[in-house]
């Protein structure tokens, strides 16, 4: 059982490194949110594997808390990002964001 847990933990470590590369490279912040969700799932799986290795149920509330934090954090940051769309995508693709942006800016200019 110990060897199985160690092999699985090694796979999770590789997965975490790949996900961290994706978080660093982006390109947009929504990709980073998706990647951080996966990173938290990898952490949950790692805690579960450590719990298997020690054969203890002490870490089970930690799994619950991590799952809830992943959800609340992801939803909050996504809502925040959908407010200011310009900063959300530093890599470009401005042509398509402009089309969505235009009605808003026209409204505010007429109002002022």
């Amino acid at each position, binding site marked *: *059982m110990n060897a*199985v*847990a160690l*092999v*699985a*933990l090694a*796979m*999770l470590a*590789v*997965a*975490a490194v*790949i*996900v961290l*590369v*994706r978080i660093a490279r982006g390109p*947009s912040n*929504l*990709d980073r*949110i*998706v*990647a951080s*969700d*996966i990173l938290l*799932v*990898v952490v*949950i*799986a790692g805690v*579960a*594997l450590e*719990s*298997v290795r020690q*054969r203890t*149920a002490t870490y*089970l*509330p930690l*799994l*619950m808390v991590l*799952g*809830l934090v*992943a*959800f609340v954090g*992801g*939803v909050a940051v*996504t*809502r925040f*990002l*959908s*407010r200011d*769309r310009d900063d*959300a*995508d530093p890599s470009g*693709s401005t042509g*398509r*964001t402009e*089309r*969505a942006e235009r*009605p*808003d800016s026209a*409204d505010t200019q007429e109002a002022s």
Partner: protein
Amino acid sequence: MTVPAWLLSTLDALGGVCLLLGAFLCLAGAIGLARFPDTLSRLHAATKPQTLGLFVVLLGLALTLRTWAAVTTLLLVGATQFLTAPVSAHLVGRASYRNGSVDRDTLVVDELSEALEHSDSDPTR
């Protein structure tokens, strides 16, 4: 009540297989996240470890611990993950569509654009 030893070792082996499968699904999701080209397909790769991968890991943990307290807690963890993962994925997909980072020519069905035309231009929706 005594449990035969062969049953315990079988449960341990099943739990080990489940744990390895879950870790492999996490790895597959991470590789998909690194290799897929845009946000929506990365979202597709992300759902593998989020639901099936986590469920299999929790099943392996339950098969290893074999107490009712652990099984009920793990059911709670799995149920919250199954309920919350679609919500956050839906929000991310919608936000990426409104950002304009979705290539609309590749979509087969596009009902959100009609809904957005009928709505007012509130960007926070």
